[in-house]
């Protein structure tokens, strides 16, 4: 499939070149990804699918800068992630990536707006401005009126929307989503997917999503399949 914006000359935001990733269990190395080549343009909404053990989560982790490859090069926005130290990648993540998890992962002791504010603590934004931006993000996801509610007072779908607000509050280029609809019922899942499409088209966010859900994959612009560490 071609990318959603229709222009075929969009610059590659994410480039993987001969990327390999292995883990060590005892003395035997387990190769999860082998010699992977991949390019994702800016503004794409990509879905990664595959059976479990295919390495799709590992690939997501590499793209998100959570981990570094055993071999090969990963360039995101021109930055070589493999060359960065742990601390450098942490800083890079805080500025460039927003995360959405299957289990929402909000801090139970903080309110919705406080949860959204969390990533801003890593910036030099002043406290009043932080609060303002957090509320703006909540407005985008349609939950401004629940700002002072805690996660245990929100439904699954609402929690995931708060998580999405958190993911966009620092205005990152990339949003990484790991099974975002996995814990939701059909209605809520659709609402979340609508929101993601919106973020992609209106706010021009590049979205990389791992999913089992075919209907989620259908909403993406590009679908890639992985099997045994190889793109198929």
């Amino acid at each position, binding site marked *: 499939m071609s990318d959603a914006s229709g222009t075929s000359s969009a610059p590659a935001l994410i480039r993987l070149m001969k990327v390999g990733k292995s883990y060590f269990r005892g003395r035997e190395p387990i190769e999860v990804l082998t010699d992977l080549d991949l390019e994702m343009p800016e503004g794409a909404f990509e879905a990664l699918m595959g059976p479990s053990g295919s390495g799709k989560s590992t690939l997501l*982790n590499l793209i998100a800068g*959570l981990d570094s490859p055993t071999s090969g090069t990963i360039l995101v926005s021109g930055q070589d992630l493999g060359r960065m130290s742990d601390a450098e990648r942490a*800083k890079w993540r805080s*500025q460039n*990536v927003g995360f959405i*998890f299957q289990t929402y992962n909000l*801090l139970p*002791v903080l309110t919705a707006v406080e949860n959204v504010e969390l990533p801003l603590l*890593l910036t030099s934004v002043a406290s009043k401005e932080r609060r303002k931006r957090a509320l703006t993000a909540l407005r985008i996801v349609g939950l401004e009126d629940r700002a002072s509610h805690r996660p245990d007072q929100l439904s699954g779908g609402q929690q995931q929307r708060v998580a999405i607000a958190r993911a966009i509050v620092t205005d990152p280029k990339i949003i990484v989503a790991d099974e975002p609809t996995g814990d939701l019922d059909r209605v809520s899942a659709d609402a979340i997917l609508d929101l993601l499409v919106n973020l992609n088209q209106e706010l021009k966010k590049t979205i990389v999503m791992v999913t089992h859900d075919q209907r989620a994959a259908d909403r993406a612009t590009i679908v890639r399949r992985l099997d045994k560490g190889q793109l198929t």
Partner: protein
Amino acid sequence: MNLATIAIKNTRRNLFRTVLTIFGVAVAMLAFLLLRTVLSAWLVGVEYSAKDRLATRHKITFIMTLPKRYVEDVRQVPGVTAVTWFNWFGGKLPGKEDQFFGTMAVDIKSFLDVYDEIYVPPEQKANVLADRRGAIVGASLARQFGWKVGDHITLDGTIFPGQWEFNVDGIYTATKKSIDQSSLYFHWDYLNESLPEIQREQVGWIASKVPDAGQAATVAKRIDTLFEPRDIQTLSMSERAMNTSFLGMISTLLDAMQIVSFVILLIMMLILGNTIAMGVRERTHEYGVLRAIGFMPKHLSAFVVAEATVLGLLGGALGVAIGIPLINQGVGRFMEESFTGLFPYFRVLERDVFIVMGLSVGLAVIAAIIPAYNASKLHVVDALRKFG
């Protein structure tokens, strides 16, 4: 929202455990405060004792007496500005032999001059000086036995046998914390005249005043040198030196209490550290999320230490809040009355409160070191995979 508010909010996670931990810390700090107050009470006596007053006693042992004429000799020593003398009487109230209090025969007039931190209202002072059997008693002592000015009391002599009658002509208070308010002083002349010929003209020890603390050692040496060639030699030192050496005799007990205090602090750290460590283990997944968002290991450590500090602070404050009234009103009274002489002043000192609070916070930080380190060492990807 900042580190502190997040730390405070995190304590609500498992409110029951948080409350138990705070309570545990409070109990430990309360016990520590109690022990410190006992130690301070002992040391207060030394700290406030006079450096510009000397005590002169028999060189061999304080049980042996000095001849009364030595008083005049001490008065003549250069550097001595005032002199007074004491005999330990050792009296007991008939029927209440187990309630110990100090009784001494003194030359009341010069005694009050030399011990100017003892205050007796003027009319009471005039009365006792005019009354051969007059006595002044400390305010605490008067309270303990319900004595009032004008009361007539009888004491059994243990060293000087017989029944001795006294009139409570005055009640004294002290302007300094180191003088105990639980003694009875009466006229030396009364004692001296009542003794058989061979036992007269003996004093227990001589107290003298010097112009300032700097001269204490020199004048003390001068006094001892004066009596060196005679049959009966003396040993003189400042009051503070005397109290310090007295403390030296119970130094083992003091050391034991220091050790026990240390153990209390250890227990407090164990309780606190354990709770924090549990929290860290349970929040592994959450820490993974924070790291994913971009928080660094040092941030996570900061979160852990901040939480420990909050618990320590609340626990310490609670311990102090319960401790101060408990010790001052309850335990303090009990100690001052049952162990008078040992504890003339048993109150929580401001300094000790600061020490307790400082320790609550400081030790909380130390207890958090290992859990904080563990939190910082998490691998992001592994942490994210864990559930709970």
